[in-house]
């Protein structure tokens, strides 16, 4: 009965346009801990989520945590919400964590991780026919270095990102060799260096990220990804090998500690409802990383412009 009244009050308040502070009263006043990592996009999603939750009357705390190591904290309930787990880089750790039952998947963020081979636009003069992958292969010599001999050098992501690039090169019979960068900082350092010198480079780039905004260039067009391509060797141009196509695009997930639902039911709903588009995110990341604005400023601007969107997440 008591809950009912509170819900009624909350609904009225929301109806009156006085968002917040109401329906969270019924729930725990312990702070909800959101994890922060070291890339701006994630800081933005987390800050937006945190501000929305705070608006709804929840007590919010941000905790600095490593992207993968955070699962230890999510499992034990030391941390509560992680806003960006990329299908492409965090899948294994996420599966391992959700399998224990202590971590739950809170659905997609609405952002799609695109990752593919990418080249700066000045390469189009050297290799006419880009972005087709065959044109890239025809001028693979342009990308060769002393270490790779006559093969072209393709700078792949860290080994841990997977991506099947060695297999792709084999299946499409490309004259390239994969060199793995250890971190994405190293990856973009090389891009920056090559871009300054207008030197040939083809590398793994992902989006949403500031790099596709800052540097002019395009993703290489491979035969489009399908599940059969990865699983069935007979599919595609190469009848005997799988992976003869591009990379899949994957969603970016939200995950939370399993106790979130119980302790802060309203907050769990809000986290589940959270969505944002690639375009919005790309623009915001650009504002922060390229125009030097603060995460606070940019997230506030988004909140002000999209009041209807986020009010729906916490309306009950």
């Amino acid at each position, binding site marked *: 009965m008591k809950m009912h009244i509170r819900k009624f009050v909350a609904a009225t308040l929301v109806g009156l346009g006085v968002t917040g502070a109401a329906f969270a009263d019924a729930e725990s006043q312990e702070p909800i801990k959101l994890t922060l990592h070291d890339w701006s996009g994630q800081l933005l999603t987390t800050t937006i989520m945190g501000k929305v939750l705070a608006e709804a009357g929840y007590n919010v705390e941000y905790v600095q945590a490593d992207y993968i190591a955070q699962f230890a904290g999510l499992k034990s309930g030391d941390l509560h919400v992680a806003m960006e787990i990329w299908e492409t880089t965090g899948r294994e750790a996420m599966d391992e964590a959700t399998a224990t039952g202590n971590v739950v998947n809170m659905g997609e963020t609405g952002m799609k991780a695109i990752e593919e081979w990418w080249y700066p636009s000045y390469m189009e003069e050297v290799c006419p026919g880009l972005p087709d992958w065959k044109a890239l292969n025809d001028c693979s010599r342009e990308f060769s270095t002393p270490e790779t001999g006559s093969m072209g050098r393709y700078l792949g992501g860290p080994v841990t990102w997977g991506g099947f690039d060695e297999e792709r090169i084999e299946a499409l019979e490309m004259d390239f060799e994969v060199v793995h960068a250890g971190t994405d900082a190293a990856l973009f350092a090389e891009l*920056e260096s090559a871009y300054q010198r207008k030197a040939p480079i083809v590398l793994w780039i992902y989006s949403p990220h500031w790099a596709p905004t800052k540097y002019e260039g395009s993703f290489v067009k491979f035969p489009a990804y399908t599940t059969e391509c990865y699983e069935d060797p007979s599919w595609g141009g190469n009848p005997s090998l799988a992976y003869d196509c591009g990379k899949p695009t994957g969603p970016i997930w939200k995950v939370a500690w399993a106790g979130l639902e119980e302790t802060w039911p309203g907050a769990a709903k809000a986290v589940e409802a959270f969505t944002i588009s690639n375009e919005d995110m790309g623009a915001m990341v650009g504002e922060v990383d390229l125009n030097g604005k603060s995460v606070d400023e940019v997230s506030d601007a988004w909140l002000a412009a999209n009041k209807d969107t986020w009010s729906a997440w916490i309306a009950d």
Partner: protein
Amino acid sequence: MKRLQHLLPGRSGWFWLTLFFITWALSHYSWDLYKALDARWIIKYPSAYLFKAESLISHFMQWLVEDATFGIFTFRELTRFIAALIEFPYVFMRDLLIDGFSVGLGNQAVEIAPSLSWIAVIVTLTAIAHYARDWKLAALVGGCFLYLAVFGQWQSAMVTLASVLIAVPIGSLGGLLLGILAYRVPLFETLLRPILDLMQTVPVFAYLVPILFLFGFGPVAALVATVIYAMPPMVRVTIVALKGVPSEIRDVGVMVGCTRWQMMWKVIVPAAAPTLMVGVNQVIMLTLNMVIIASMIGAGGLGFDVLGALRRLDIGGGIEAGLAIVVMAIALDRLSQAFASRSVDTHPVNPDRNLIGRHPWFATVLLVAICTYLLGGQSAIVQTYPEAATVSTGTFWSGLMGYMNVHFFDTFEAVKTVFLTYLLLPIKNFFTGIPWVWGIVVMVLIGWRMGGIGLAMLTGTLTALIAMVGLWDKAMITVYLCGVSVLIASAIGIPMGILAAQNDKANRVIGSLIDTLQTLPSFVYLIPVVMLFRVGDFSAMIAVVLYALAPAVRYAAHGIRNIDQQLIEAGLVSGCTPRQVLWRIKLPMAIPELLLGLNQTIMLALSMLVITALVGTRDLGQEVYIALTKANSGQGIVAGFAIAFIAIIADRILSAAANRVRRNLGLER
């Protein structure tokens, strides 16, 4: 004829030459051998006989963090309790330095008192420096912290300072107590020694996941990891320091009838205090070394700024935050050194004066703190350094980097190619080709030759273990990368050390260069290095060389300086040229120190492996890093132990070698 004999190797020379030649031949023809005999086990440890340490350790860890119990409470509750004990002073320190005291949690917290203002913090540190030595030191320390404010690093620097102020006392006190126990109970010392080796050489990433489970997420786990890494030198220094207390002092203690407690805490520990402070100094430096890794698991502060800036490729920002760590390290280092050498009569105080007169430093600090507290409410400038007055050199660094990149890349590329073709690749092929069986035999032989049967057993067993867990290939890549880097670091560092020992001006320049290189987080120069040299072994090698240079220089300088003056005079009297003095007297006499330097160079090179994994090497460091990203604690710990084993083997062999040389030179007492 005589001359020819001189050129021919002696008996031990033949031993090494033969060993090297056989190894080379086996390494070169291992593949052909495998094909000819159809015996794949020659190049690859048979997977059927793999020792499944990974899953064993994973299971043990799972048991430890989830089920281990002491009856009334579980192991995890115990560690959580410890975490709470550490968290309390840490939170207090953070509130005091930067966050301000508040009641409530999260965004509902209400501030009840502000933190110390930046002026008060600087005055406090300056006063401590003046108390420890003189105005010169006070100016240095004050200047360093003023730098942090002016360059806009204050906020992060205080977060880092707070964790240093917690980690250092825990590390020092813990180290002291363990050291005392080891000093009293010889058996404990024997048991402790290998554990200390492991604490120092197993990369932190390897046990990060279990630590997060046990100590919870956030700054406390980072503090625990920091303490584990920074404590071992304190234990070692304590043991040496206590053993070094002259027996006369002890005798006096016995004569005046001290109890055991009094004997330890009133006689021996105070007598050993100056040496103990050297250990504290080490703890401070290692704590600051951990800043970057600690920030990855939630310590925040300057380390986080470095990481964040470099992910945005904001090289200037990364360098500024990195230099802030250096500046802080220099201030704290000099401060602790001053305390190490402080004597009672540094600042004689007249006991007849009033309370304020007797405690001028404390009084000043208190006065400034109260004044800034009162003024802070009215004027924001007093509380926080105004952002408008901060200076940034960010664009300068990025511009410089761009200029170098555009104009000199081809030159760098040419140099790199030469190094790769004539040094790195041949050495890599040599090491990776060695069949694992022969590798074990070689290590046994070397151990036996240098230190007898005991050492042979140790080196053989550890090498065999590495092969048995299936990490032979990665271990060989590790040995190659470290080997090349150590070679180059020694080739650069030893001459620098010799120069520093003989020339005061050079000493000052080289000294500050080395200090900077050791405390500047390697990540700061790793990214520019990648921009100029691309991802690969060469970039990794440069980073390792830069980091591992310091001990090569320091020990070489120390070794040359410490040579008995009489020996040098004897040389001069018998008509040696300066060149002959150096080559015939100084260098041979300094060999034991040079070997110790080599030992430390290897240790530092190995500890860099985890960092170089970030630029894409394929060695054990990468294995640890992959394990971390997959949250596989077993894999991480096994790879971490493999690194530690390599370190221990190198350490034991070089120590044995140093002892032999010392005996041969007649330096042993």
